[in-house]
Every structure is written in C-alpha cells, then in structure tokens.
C-alpha cells in the first residue's frame, strides 16, 4: 500500500477533511488509480495514529461523493470514474479557491491596489498557462 497520506493533527483543519482532500487530490492526479484498493479503516487509522471513526467518516464522505466505492468484506476501491466525477473537479476548484483567497487577502493587507494585484496575478497566469495552452 503506498504511504501517500499524511495528516497534521496540530492544525485546526479537521482530520477527516484533511484525509478527504488528500484522497481526492491523489485520485485527480492519478497517484491513486481507478480500481486501486485503499487501506482498510483499521490499517490507515493505525498507520496515521488517528481515530478509526475519523477514517471511516472520510471514507463514507468519499463514497457519497462518488470517488470511492466500498463493498462489504472486500474493502474500499477508487471508482473507475472516480477521477472524472464532477465532485472531484469541484474538489480541485475548492482547493484552488482557498489558495487564491489567501493570496488575495495577503495582497490586500500588503496595501496593493486591486489593479496591481490583478496585474501580478495575470503575470503568474501567463507564466504557468502560456498562450495557446488550452484550458483542459
């Protein structure tokens, strides 16, 4: 089982949310492949030293969101269409939005004007999304 998950209990972000985000990210990026089995609740709880109910809750939410499927007695697996579900796209949007929100707040408190902030942001967009690089 690839040890791809880590959680930080010291932050204020609930552990089950940290876990959900990481699984969604792993599925969206492909480090968890469709059909791949996730660790059992007990195994993941022990390897992260966190409460088993926390893991179970994360798995329940992931199942509800259509990212994984659980069959009793066999375990939890990444759904064949897990990476392409609307939910997993929306999850990536959420991650991006929260990063942009932090950046915008920081720009504001640094005293930048809205126009200057937009300029800097647009420079960064040009750098990472060169012209002709179609949105996917």
């Amino acid at each position, binding site marked *: 089982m690839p040890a791809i998950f880590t959680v930080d*209990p*010291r*932050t*204020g*972000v*609930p*552990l*089950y*949310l940290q876990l959900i985000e990481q699984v969604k990210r792993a599925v969206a990026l492909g480090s968890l492949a469709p059909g791949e089995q996730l660790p059992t*609740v*007990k195994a993941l*709880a*022990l390897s992260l*030293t*966190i*409460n*088993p*109910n*926390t893991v179970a809750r994360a798995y329940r939410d992931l199942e509800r969101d259509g990212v994984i499927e659980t069959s009793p007695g066999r375990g939890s697996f990444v759904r064949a269409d897990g990476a392409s579900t609307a939910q997993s796209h929306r999850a990536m949007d959420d991650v991006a939005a929260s990063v942009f*929100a932090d950046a915008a*707040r920081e720009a*504001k*408190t640094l*005293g930048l004007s809205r126009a200057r902030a937009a300029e800097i942001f647009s420079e960064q967009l040009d750098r990472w999304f060169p012209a002709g690089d179609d949105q996917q």
Partner: protein
Amino acid sequence: MNPTNAIAIRNFTKRYGSFEAVSNLTLEVEPGSICGLLGPNGSGKTTTFKCLIGLARPTAGTLDVEGAPVHPETFETLAYVPERSALYEWMTVADHLEFNRRSYKTFDRKRAEELVDLFRLERKKKVGKLSKGQHTAVALVLAFSFRPRILILDEPASGLDPVFQRVVLDLIIEAASTGSTVVFSSHQIGQVERAADRVAILKNGKLIVDGTVDTLKGSEKIVEAIFDQSVPEVAGLSTDPRVRRIERSGRILRAYVKEDSDGIARRLSEFSPKNVSVLDLNLEDIFINAVGGEIPSIPGEGS
C-alpha cells in the same frame, strides 16, 4: 436509559465533606468511540472514573456502563487502568499474567506475550523493582490482553517515554477499530487530538467543553490583525453576533469568530492593518480558551 451508550453518566455529583469534586456531570460515550478527558489536576477526572467503576459512591446522579451501574460481571468486559499502580509489588510480571489468565475467560495469552515484548518487560522481574513507566506498561498489558469491550484508562501514558506513549495510542486506536470503547484521561493534548473522536474538558469538577474534536475545531476561527500603531476602535465588532470574544494586546487584535471569518477579516482590513490572517483553532487553543487565564506566569519573568 439509552442502551446504545457504552457509558452514560447523568447528573453526577461527588462531594467529599464540603468539597464538591464533581458537579452535575452528564457525559455519554457511544460504543466504539474514543473519548479523551482533559482537565487540570484536581478537576475531577479520577473521581469520575472511581465512581464509574464502583470504587466510590456518587453523592448524586447515575453512572452506567452498558446500560446499568457496574456489577461483578461488568469486569469481565471492562478494563480499568488507574493512575496509580494497583499491582502486587511482590509478584513478578509473569505471575501477574498467570493471575489474570485465570481471572478472565477471554484472556488472550498470545496477545499478552506479544505486548510484554512490545513494552520490553522482563517476565521474571518483581513488579516492586520496576520503574513507574514499567508499572504502567504492565497494567496496560493486563488491560489489553483480555480484549475488553470497554477500557477506562486514567493517564495511561504517564511515566512512559515518547516511543511507548505512541504504542499506547496505537493500542487504543486498535481497540476502537475492533469495536471497543475507550475513555482515557491525559495531560497531553496532542494525544487526545490524534486519537480521540470525542473530547470532554473538566474544570473544577464541571464539564466545560464536550464535543467531537472535529466539531470543536470547526466551530471557531481566530481572525488576527496586526497594526502599525495601536489597535483602532472597530465600531460594532464587540457586539457582532459572529464574534464570540475579542482580545487586544499591544498592536494585535484577535477576534474569536464563530462564522464568516472572511467577512470579519475584510472588515478589519478596512482599518489598514499591517496584516490580517485567519487562523484555525487546534485543540490546545480550545483547551486554553476553556480553562482560561489560569496559566501561571513564572516569577521574575515579564511584569
């Protein structure tokens, strides 16, 4: 009586003479969950455990384990590890294992031997010759070896080094993942934050915080604004229903915000602070918030 609760403490009060050790405590723990009990020394944790397992009588209220007050059969499925060792000093580690093997129908000998090795205990050593941490370890080996449905652990990590503290957490997590219910007290907030799904904080015998760790963390955020000069007067902030409490120290303003932390951050940024950040609360913040203002300062430091 709700039979679905592994533990149900209702309106429990314990007085010693005129001293009220626990006041009107109500706490219910679901089966298969891990409940962490936090609180300063003398806040009533051990008293609660003692009354729960029948070592002391409550002054008022009821304390039920699996739907009824403890009775002799309860102890076939309940393990209690007290804060102070209750082992026989003249017996060896192996003697204790044998003693418990005869006492518990469900005693798992193989498991006990594994745990003895895990804690690196010497079987032939008399318990009286063991360190405090090793006493704790023996008590834990005995408790986890008969696979009880309910575990009551009073500071199970005390005297153990960080490696063995982690072993204790693993044992607690493993027990819960097989359906056992664990209630443990600890002074180490980080342990509770990791392992518990439920946390209860006692102060002076009263329950002051009770909820799931995730709910408690999600319930509040801190919006912190740092100003160049002094903190300005922000009209309406202290009466804003979104804000629970405001703290000012020097050039820093901290608002403890129940909802819409971004809205509060925007409002504060109108006053041109050097920086505004939205901070998540961790369990330590929640604990200090709740127990509040009782962190003694070291004499000679600061003012």
